[in-house]
């Protein structure tokens, strides 16, 4: 994969992320905030963006969505758990629900 391909992929991912996020927020803001793990301010921001704004924002070569596991405990639990898989997932869900949201500083 060349660097150019990679940039194109990133722009694609950005666009689908923003469009999906906006759809989720417009359909049901409360659940979308939980699923996306963002603050209400950011949700308002994404909700109010026009298509042109989304295209502009997604057109950059930087990834817009960030990795949500800044905690090695959750990550380890999801990937190498030696117990029941459904148990591991519920454990991870409990930890994820307790995480702070992404906020505008």
């Amino acid at each position: 994969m060349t660097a150019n391909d990679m940039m194109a992929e990133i722009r694609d991912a950005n666009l689908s992320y923003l469009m999906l996020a906006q759809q989720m927020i417009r359909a049901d803001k409360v659940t979308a905030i939980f699923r996306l793990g963002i603050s209400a301010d950011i949700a308002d921001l994404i909700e109010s963006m026009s298509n042109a704004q989304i295209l502009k924002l997604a057109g950059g070569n930087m990834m817009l969505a960030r990795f949500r596991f800044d905690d090695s405990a959750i990550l380890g639990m999801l990937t190498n758990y030696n117990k029941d898989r459904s148990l591991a997932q519920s454990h991870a869900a409990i930890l994820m629900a307790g995480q702070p949201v992404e906020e505008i500083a």
Partner: protein
Amino acid sequence: MSKKSVVSEAQEIQLAIELINLGARLQLLESEVSLSRERLLKLYKELKGVSPPKGMLPFSTDWFLTWQPNIHSSLFVNIHHFLVTHAGATGIHAVMKAYQLYLEQMPPAPGEEPVLSLTRAWTLVRFFNSDMLKLEPCGKCQGKFVVDAMDLNGGYVCGLCHMPSRAGKTKKAREAESQAA
């Protein structure tokens, strides 16, 4: 008494329908929806085809502290807490949304009831509001779990980091295993 608004009544009926479909019992409906008991009864019969179950609601906090229910209720409370603090949800709507998200995370096996029913989830939130139960971080994984507010919870370790030896070894699980073998 204020004049009855048709629009707000329609909204109340809509709310009642959603609650009944999620499995609410009549006591929950009576305290959260401002419709008369007769109308709620009619609505319940129309939606479910049967009369609502009679009798008191479970009122003990102990159920939430046993192993499997504790995991389910901890997940629900964490979601509910998240929705209230970050998404600005309130009251019965927060409970409803949190319950729907809980069902997505822990879908019940086909043909089976979810471990935590909506009425139990609602009772759980009331126990939290009256400080009978609280959340305590587990010393190992830092996840927050439901504990009795009156217990001594120093050095608490959750039921998932420290599984009790007989946890999950139910008759049902054994039968499923023997069928798979």
